[in-house]
């Protein structure tokens, strides 16, 4: 069965596993079954190796240096920016701002684009399936500047309710902030349609691509979004780095984010002028080592047929879904058509944490909790779910291990 799936998918997950040293470790004497890539993905050897090699051969601070290593490091850093541009399908490297992660990318838009222009009563449209990182930055604008949050509902099967979105956008809407892919439901949102609706009213769209960038092939121009936020560590890259894609026209008008070195043009005692984007938004020493690691991760991913990876993950999703359907004591939350490789569920009489503890002892790492998505939990009337999320290195054997562990848990707690 595995062999057939492999050939069909044109992607050899078994072979790819060998690139991830951690996957061959054991926990509690059992082989590790890592189903928590939605929280953070493991790193292929190439990523840590690229960072180490860079540190040992070409490292220095970037920009402003005249010496050889400074030039070499700057080349690495700017080449990484080009790699991100290509990965996102953006038009220009000037539209790529390096950040410390996805959360900062969204905060940057909230603080540098929206905060200076939003008025009391102005509205921000966001969905009930957002991650806290795409909620709290907008709550700040509510708390501090009187903005109003308008919530787009989620359908019973865990999709974005497009009618609700349409209704939410109005004359006072100043931003539509929607995830590209839910980290709980796996739902992929129709960004093109969302953009069409928003732009028809002159409203910009921010897409939270922290999950979307991992599982979808991207083309900023085709999606038409104004802002797209990604994070390095979910995409097989290092922590400490993320990126914001933003249209040049927005970036030009946005006020600085952090103040510090590199983002200025001239500083005097009484005045300060700012550098052009993207430097304006990259105050201080940027994540230099991490840029090299992120580029290595993207190169690693791009080295495969990404459609084949997608098919592989979809195969895992369907396989898992079918297995889980056998358990009448378990309810999957989120079954939208076209969803990505994330499955959340609740189990009768078994709290997610107890379940996760038992699974853990079987070597199966899953997430349990509210997944930084409390409004979504509330929407589905749960306080927490158990979540299995799949990455390119997972296999049907991992799903089988999950299912067996669930049966064991049922035996203990059920």
């Amino acid at each position, binding site marked *: 069965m595995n062999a057939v799936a492999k050939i069909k998918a044109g992607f050899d997950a078994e072979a790819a596993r060998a690139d991830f040293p951690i996957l061959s470790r054991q926990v509690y004497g059992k082989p590790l079954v890592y189903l928590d890539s939605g929280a953070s993905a493991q790193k292929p050897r190439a990523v840590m190796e690229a960072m180490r090699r860079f540190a040992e051969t070409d490292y220095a601070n970037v920009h402003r240096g005249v010496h050889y290593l400074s030039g070499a490091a700057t080349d690495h850093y700017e080449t990484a920016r080009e790699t991100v541009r290509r990965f996102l399908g953006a038009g220009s490297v000037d539209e790529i701002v390096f950040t410390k992660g996805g959360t900062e990318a969204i905060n940057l838009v909230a603080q540098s684009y929206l905060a200076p222009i939003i008025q009391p009563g102005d509205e921000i449209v966001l969905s009930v399936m957002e991650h806290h990182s795409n909620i709290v930055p907008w709550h700040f604008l509510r708390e501090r500047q009187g903005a109003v949050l308008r919530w787009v509902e989620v359908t019973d099967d865990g999709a974005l309710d497009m009618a609700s979105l349409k209704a939410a956008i109005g004359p006072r809407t100043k931003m539509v902030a929607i995830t590209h892919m839910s980290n709980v439901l796996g739902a992929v949102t129709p960004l093109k349609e969302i953009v069409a609706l928003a732009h028809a009213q002159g409203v910009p769209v921010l897409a939270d691509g922290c999950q979307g960038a991992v599982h979808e092939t991207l083309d900023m121009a085709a999606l038409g979004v104004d802002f797209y936020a990604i994070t390095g560590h979910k995409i097989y890259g290092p922590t400490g780095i993320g990126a914001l894609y933003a249209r040049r026209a927005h970036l030009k008008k946005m006020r600085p984010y952090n103040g510090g070195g590199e983002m200025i043009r001239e500083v005097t005692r009484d005045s300060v002028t700012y550098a052009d984007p993207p430097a304006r938004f990259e105050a201080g020493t940027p994540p230099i080592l991490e840029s090299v690691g992120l580029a290595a991760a993207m190169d690693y991913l791009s080295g495969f047929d990404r459609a084949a990876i997608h098919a592989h993950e979809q195969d895992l999703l369907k396989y898992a879904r079918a297995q889980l359907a056998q358990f009448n004591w378990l309810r999957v939350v989120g079954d939208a058509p076209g969803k990505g490789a994330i499955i959340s569920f609740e189990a009768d009489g078994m*709290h997610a*944490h107890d379940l996760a*503890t*038992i699974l853990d002892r079987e070597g199966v790492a899953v997430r349990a*909790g509210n997944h930084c998505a409390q409004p979504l939990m509330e929407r589905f009337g749960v306080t*927490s779910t158990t979540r299995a999320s799949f990455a390119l290195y997972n296999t049907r054997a991992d799903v089988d291990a999950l299912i067996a562990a669930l049966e064991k848990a049922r035996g*203990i*707690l059920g």
Partner: protein
Amino acid sequence: MDQHLRELYQEVILDHSRHPRHFGVLPDATHKAEGFNPLCGDKVSVTLILDADGKVADINFQGKGCAISQASASMMTDMLKGRSKTDAEALMDGFLHLVKGEDAQGLSPDDRETLDVMSGISEFPMRVKCATLAWHTFKNAVEEGAT
């Protein structure tokens, strides 16, 4: 089956978690507090009546959470009811040692025996907070939660 898991999820624990004792809110509480476990988002509220002698005349808890946190809260209310404040604090102290796998000398043999079912948690460091949540909330209620 994993020996540690069996000890963690003993029948007594599961029974407490499914049929929690003293579940609810005391309307005439003299002290109350809310507890929150940022790790899992679980919440618990504790209401109690401290009588003139400093005795826990009655105590309730309410909340949603995992089997460990529910069972621990339920057992706690069972054990605290009728105790003096000082006694209660000593008991809590012993409990905190116990769940961390440390020596719980302060506990009376009876209390030690009752709490024995909770000692398995020490093998699960990530779940210790689940077990201690209700106790910390009780402490907060007594110290800062006068109504």
